[in-house]
């Protein structure tokens, strides 16, 4: 694969870095990544696994069914190139599967039986964090140092995109929680004003009425406040008529 043109590589990197689109989908993105990397090799297939927040690996995407099986074998039997790359945070390259039975007693014979001759794997890493691994399964393909560097760089760029997506998702969830919490406080104040006016009492007294009503009816305060601001007539005790 050392014959990849600079132009083709540049396009590849742009594709892989492009995670800031409106309808970004992690699985689709990883699917694209595995297909693109497989495309670099001519006779190789690519599979990818990611770790969840507890560090457990799970299959995410593969360029074809045979690569998906290779990833699943590793996860099921607990050995193989991706697990090594994940554990050591270093690439595993040019392993001849026919001679790797001592290294991976479970994975090597199954991969060889499936028709693969060589295996490589690259950690998906950002600084010290390793979030997964990408495996490349091929016929007698040899990767030289430059090839390995290109594949590792693609993996690194993909990780930046993935972590960015994770950070944005977390940000959106937390923003929603913050706004929701502030909003429920505001609604309670508005409800106090509504009940105060409707019942001719002070806002403090109105709050006591609302709280007592919520307790008596086993409802949450914010839920009662919501009903007051949206549908007061349904609450005759609190001033609705």
């Amino acid at each position, binding site marked *: 694969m050392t014959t990849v043109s600079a132009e083709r590589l540049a396009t590849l990197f742009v594709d892989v870095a492009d995670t800031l689109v409106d309808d970004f989908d992690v699985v689709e993105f990883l699917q694209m990544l595995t297909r693109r990397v497989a495309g670099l090799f001519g006779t190789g297939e690519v599979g990818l696994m990611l770790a969840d927040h507890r560090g457990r690996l799970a299959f995410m995407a593969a360029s074809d069914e045979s690569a998906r099986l290779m990833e699943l074998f590793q996860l099921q039997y607990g050995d193989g190139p991706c697990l090594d790359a994940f554990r050591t945070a270093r690439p595993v390259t040019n392993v001849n599967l026919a001679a790797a039975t001592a290294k991976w007693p479970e994975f090597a014979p199954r991969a060889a039986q499936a028709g693969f001759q060589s295996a490589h794997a690259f950690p998906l890493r950002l600084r010290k964090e390793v979030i997964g691994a990408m495996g490349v399964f091929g016929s007698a393909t040899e990767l030289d140092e430059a090839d390995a560097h290109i594949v590792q760089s693609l993996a690194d760029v993909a990780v930046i995109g993935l972590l960015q997506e994770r950070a*944005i998702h977390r940000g959106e969830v937390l*923003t929603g929680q913050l706004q929701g*919490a502030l909003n429920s406080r505001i609604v309670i104040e508005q409800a106090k*004003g509504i009940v105060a006016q409707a019942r001719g009492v002070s806002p403090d007294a109105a709050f006591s009425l609302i709280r007592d009503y919520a307790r008596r009816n086993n409802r949450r305060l914010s839920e009662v406040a919501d009903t007051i601001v949206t549908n*007061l007539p349904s609450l005759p005790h609190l001033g609705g008529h």
Partner: protein
Amino acid sequence: MTVVDEFVVRVARLVADEPSRPGDHHGVAGKLRRLCTAAGRTLSASGAGVSVLATGGMRGVAAVSEPAYEPLEELQFSLGEGPCLDAFTDRRPVLVPDLSDGAMSRWPGYASALHDKGVRAVFAFPLQIGAARLGALDVFRGEVGSLTPDEFRDALTFADIAVMTLLDGQARAVPGAAADGLDDEVVGQRAELFQAQGMVAVQLGISLADALARLRAYAYAEDRALGDVARDVVARRVSFDSGRP
């Protein structure tokens, strides 16, 4: 990646090194006050403020660099106009290096209030991450002039750190509650406004949004602060159903 990190680290240190003050609020609000002060100094500004919004268009001041800027930041909410609201709505920075240049027609009420307080330039930066929006950072300057490219980059970095501060605070919050210190700052200080809104809605049989508009119109016509009018409504010194306002 590394270059961006360096800016974040440097600006984060400016915020961390900012000494706390006796009146500082606890939690996120106190951190944002220090951020505003550090941003004001770094950007040669006379003052800075962070406003946060709740759903339903309700906004509130979370922190200001100096107490004198609290009313200015708050006024945008009272009037329903200003650079902070525009930065938030448009999701992009609002840069007004010379307030006498068109700002009067853009924000008739707010621009003249700024001018009266000696503000000559204002810059607002949205606080956002992905599609989510949290509020805006306002930077006020006493002199006409644009931000330099370095200042612009620093201002965006201050805005990023304000976002991180808010999100980290929210990540540690009790489920269902807002980040520590924000409840009191954003909602508590203006509790009477929301109560007055509810009362006026009942007095006139109108929606909460219309009630807020009526309160704003009344404050504007009487040339009084919205908060003062709200206090009078809650104390029943002002009523909207007796034909007076």
